């Protein structure tokens, strides 16, 4: 079993929830921002000492939800402060970006890290399409073409041009090329059936986050596996990643208290302005291929928000408790899903960094020894 330490880099100092999208940035204090970046990067570096196999980060825009508008910058910092942990960019929001730039930056990260990149090719949550003014109807088609172009940029030995639906480049030849051959492993979301098929078709690591219940997650994994097999690929367990909000403390009570506080800030403050934007994109565009998938996405968010902690633990949506409790929860989910990677997010909302660090130490000393052999 492999474990990934994931960070959203949230802004934790808001006293009130933003009331509209995008969140006004007058409350951002650069000096505090510097402190947060320092603390968050320290935490990600510490993940290597704690035995995590991957460290993960991602891209979000126009929101205190996450301070990584370009996670590759964080990845660049991590290449210089870590030596063996895989750097999982989970990922760049490919349809919003210049795919050649993504190919270049990912190749830089792969070379700078000595071949440790896991290249997330993510479509992005709906509201990001407002931020970058990209047609949400085209999100899937843009992702498909951009991924093909990035793979070509990584693997084609001669300069080439590209004539596509969304992208035209007369001559491409990136420097550097990635270190991993033929290219770094891809990771794609499998949070709905369509995404799961797409990930399987591309022989990518499939990533499931916001797991509302284990049955739904299992169905997505089945869809992914079927599509991968159809593409001639038998995905090993470590090609199935499940993301979890995680809180480990010395006692169950302490962990529950910490996570409840963090979740409150996460849902009431950080998510506040995002929901309206997400609703807008989902209802006013064809971001999701069909109404049912869109409804499922919204319902899943609502479900996750409304449930109490016991419900979430029972549903297999979070890991929370003492090391002994978390070991049991991890084993249970692993038994149900057969995944080979857990992507653990310890920094939920405004959980203090000292609490996060204590949780990481407990993970290293008391959880990992019990679950690494799964």
């Amino acid at each position, binding site marked *: 079993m492999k474990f990934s330490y994931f960070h959203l880099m949230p802004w934790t100092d808001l006293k009130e929830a933003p009331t509209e999208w995008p969140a006004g940035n007058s409350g951002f204090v650069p000096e505090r921002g510097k402190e947060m970046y320092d603390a968050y990067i320290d935490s990600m570096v510490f993940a290597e000492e704690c035995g995590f196999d991957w460290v993960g980060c991602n891209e979000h825009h126009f929101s205190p939800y996450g301070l990584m508008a370009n996670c590759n910058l964080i990845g660049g910092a991590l290449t210089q402060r870590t030596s063996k942990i895989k750097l999982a960019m989970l990922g760049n929001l490919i349809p919003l970006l210049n795919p050649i730039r993504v190919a270049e930056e990912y190749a830089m990260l792969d070379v700078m890290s000595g071949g440790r990149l896991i290249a997330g090719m993510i479509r992005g949550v709906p509201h990001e399409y407002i931020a970058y003014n990209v047609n949400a109807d085209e999100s899937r088609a843009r992702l498909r*073409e951009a991924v093909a172009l990035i793979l070509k940029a990584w693997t084609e030995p001669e300069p080439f*041009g590209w004539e596509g639906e969304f992208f035209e480049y007369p001559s491409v030849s990136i420097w550097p090329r990635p270190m991993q051959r033929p290219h770094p492993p891809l990771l794609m979301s499998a949070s709905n059936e369509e995404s799961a098929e797409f990930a399987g078709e591309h022989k990518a690591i499939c990533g499931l986050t916001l797991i509302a219940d284990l049955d739904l997650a299992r169905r997505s994994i089945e869809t992914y596996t079927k599509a991968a097999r159809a593409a001639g690929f038998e995905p090993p367990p470590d090609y199935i990643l499940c993301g979890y909000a995680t809180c480990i403390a010395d006692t169950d009570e302490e962990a529950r208290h910490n996570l409840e506080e963090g979740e409150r800030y996460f849902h009431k403050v950080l998510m506040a302005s995002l929901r309206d934007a997400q609703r807008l994109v989902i209802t006013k565009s064809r971001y999701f291929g069909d109404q049912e998938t869109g409804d499922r996405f919204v319902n899943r968010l609502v479900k996750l928000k409304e449930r109490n902690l016991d419900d979430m633990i029972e549903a297999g949506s979070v890991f929370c408790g003492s090391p002994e409790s978390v070991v049991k929860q991890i084993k249970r989910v692993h038994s149900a899903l057969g995944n080979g990677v857990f992507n653990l997010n310890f920094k939920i909302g405004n959980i203090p960094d000292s609490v996060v660090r204590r949780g990481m130490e407990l993970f290293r000393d008391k959880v990992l020894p019990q679950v690494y052999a799964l």
Partner: protein
Amino acid sequence: MFTTEQAVLDTGPITYRKGGTGRPLLLVHGTSGPNHTPVTDQLAQRHTVYQPIMPGWDGTPQHAAVKRVPNLADVYAAFIRTVIGGPCDVIGNSFGGWVAAWLAARHPDLVEQLVLECPAGMRDPGTGGLPTDPVELRRQTYARPERAPAPSRTQEAYWINRNLRDKIGAGSSLDEALLRELPKITARTLIVFGTKDEISPSDKAGPRLKTGIKRSHLTFVYDAAHALEFDQPERVGRLVTAFLERGEGFLVRSAQVV
């Protein structure tokens, strides 16, 4: 508006289609025979397009001198001299790309600019090639089957053409002699492959042509299989017309043609 005309070359008679106005452009067709694609119409707006029918194809007389691909290239050279009257731009598609590459290598003085669309003759043995099963052939030919044209010849006529191609091509997937001759091509060359081409896979052919031809550009057309002029006529038309009009200037995005 295209017309069908006749000419007599030293090696024998030849039938060709001609249409459009402008700089002369020679089209070298693929295995199945001449096709009129949406790109042909775009080209005819800027060029006088000549599309000879390979000797023996579509019931035309065979030329005894045509044994192998270089001989066929020589027939096209004679056509340029006799009918067009001087050097011209050349587009070769699939098997026609193989022939056109030989034409440009053996007669560099006759080819001004060269476009090789999904050219044959450069793939590794055991990869690609035309399937015999018609369902599989159609699947590999078109990424967008809804854009495929109605058949313009019978299956029997298709197989006569295809057997001729197999005879002249001598069953070769990789033409080592052409590979050695590629450096003799002096024409600026655009090499085009569809990203879904399984018949002329680009993985080895693209780099071979790109490194072999000195002044060449390799371009991939996204979401196109072997019949890329049918699969993506707008993209191919835009690309090829820009190249033929602007030469190396096609690399520069510009609102104005300078």
